[in-house]
């Protein structure tokens, strides 16, 4: 099963992520986002961060989840590539994100993702879940 697709948006980029359940789709959206930030093959799992976010609804929760990971990338300097979503309710998410501290001698960094936006945000249930988010690049 395809984990995610990158969709065209003139200034930015969009991600459509898929999952058998919502947790898998949220994890795949995060993976898709970090695939824009860095080459993820060969990144280790030495760093683990616990992520707790809350929001008013499920769509806002998706934005909050992705932006929390971008915050951790900026401050902790970790490239994440594995996401274990422990709990996902309508307005609360608890997860563990695994990755490795940036090492410019070994890691290929690509583009900066500034933030996940609320524009054209979609969470759809069809043969599992399909979620869409536009990123500001």
């Amino acid at each position, binding site marked *: 099963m395809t984990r995610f697709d*990158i*969709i*065209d*948006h*003139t*200034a*930015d*980029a969009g991600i459509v992520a898929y999952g058998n359940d919502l947790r898998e789709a949220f994890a795949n959206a995060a993976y898709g986002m970090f695939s824009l*930030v*860095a080459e993820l093959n060969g990144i280790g799992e030495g760093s683990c961060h616990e992520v707790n976010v809350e*929001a*008013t609804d499920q*769509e*806002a929760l998706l934005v*909050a989840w992705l*932006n929390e990971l*971008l*915050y951790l*990338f*900026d*401050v902790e*300097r970790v490239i994440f590539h594995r996401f274990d979503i422990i709990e996902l309710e309508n307005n609360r998410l608890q997860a563990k994100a695994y990755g490795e501290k*940036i090492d*410019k001698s070994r890691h*290929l*960094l*690509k*583009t*900066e993702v*500034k*933030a996940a*936006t*609320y*524009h*054209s*945000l979609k969470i759809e249930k069809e043969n599992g879940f399909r979620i869409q988010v*536009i990123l*500001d*690049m």
Partner: protein
Amino acid sequence: MPAGKKGKLIKIDDYRWAIPKTYKQGMRVPGLIFADEKMLAHIEEEQALEQVANVAFLPGIVGYSLAMPDIHWGYGFPIGGVAATQVRDGVISPGGVGFDINCGVRLLRTNLTVDEVKPRIEELISDLFTNIPSGLGSEGKIKLTSKQLDKLMLKGAAWAVESGYGEPEDLEYTEERGCLQGADPAKVSVKAKNRGMPQPGTLGSGNHFLEIQVVEEIYNLEIAHAFGVEVKEQILLLIHTGSRGLGHQVCDDYLKTMGAAVKKYGIELPDRQLACAPIKSPEGQAYLAAMACAANYAWANRQCITHWARESFSRVLSKKRSSLGMGLIYDVAHNIAKIEKHYIEGKNLTVCVHRKGATRAFPPKHPDLPRAYRKAGQPVLIPGDMGRYSYIAVGTDRAMEETFGSTCHGAGRLQSRSAAKRSIRGADIADELTAKGITFQVASIASLAEEASAVYKDVAEVVHITEAAGISPRVAKTRPIGVIKG
């Protein structure tokens, strides 16, 4: 094409197109797009027109929901969008500023000509690249404590000058003297501060860059001279960056606040990213205070980079700072909201002008301009893409009357990043730049394709429209000979 492909546009003249209020129920004012027919054909292919119409829903919006010719599909607001809302009963929308608060450009002059610089260009670019932290995940040279950061956010560019990065005169030639009033660090979250502490004086990534340029053409000698642009072949230096992670976090934080405010104040919007609150509400005031902090951070950021750029020129060319003549021509914000006074439909109004990918373009005699530019008008800095050229233009009375003193900010994208990556390889762009005689250093060769000429509109066409429409005529044109990019 008098009524546009979908019948929603009304042609006013060759460069002005209106979207009537009837286009979408809920629009409070019409839309007005500055474009020619050729550009319009592209604009209509994407959602940018829809976004111009959506902005017209904002409570308190006056005049028109405007779009400059570099308009393209954004999120919430289009890029190239301008909207003024009345302070009395209007709203402020963080999406109308964007994540990179006070992303902007500053241009420095020099006493150097291309003949003096070209033989040392490789060394110069390499020194700049080492001296100015750039690229994704790079650490800055300045690390601040939380208290120091608060000072920086209160003072903006003046903080940098007081800390030894630059000269007091630089402030005179920076929009708002590099410090937006009303900044309150208490309105900036701990997370935003955590992102801001290690990043002052960093170029960042994406479309941010520093460029060594050569004056290729001067269209208006008198105004060019007023700006310190003297002759063809003169070397200039352009810096394009913003408020980095701190600005992104402020925007994200306040989009959440505004999401709740929309419900609290019963505001109906067609796009969640347009979330807003009345300017006079606690939420609106808090955002303005936090946005000012981020805007000041960006001015301090560009100020530090200016200092290091002067250092590199001085070192590589073995010249004293004083003989280089590297004074600031101007520094403009192109993602910002400002409280300004405008004469609209026969009334003097205090409005909040949102400029999302748009540049302020104040006319001659405006009191906010540096004394030396009162006769000429405000310099407008319009960078093109890496491989082509950029423009210096000037603000006009017509811009003041029609666009709340605003104009375009750049070339505007044509192609998405992913489409660019499918059709263009970073390595090919590298060859192309080399063939054009442009020396460059980039932190990521992969990201080069995303910023290639082919993915942007030709900035010459954009500037032709703003000139023909009378809002910002060209003063000079420059071409790059050296680039550093994140």
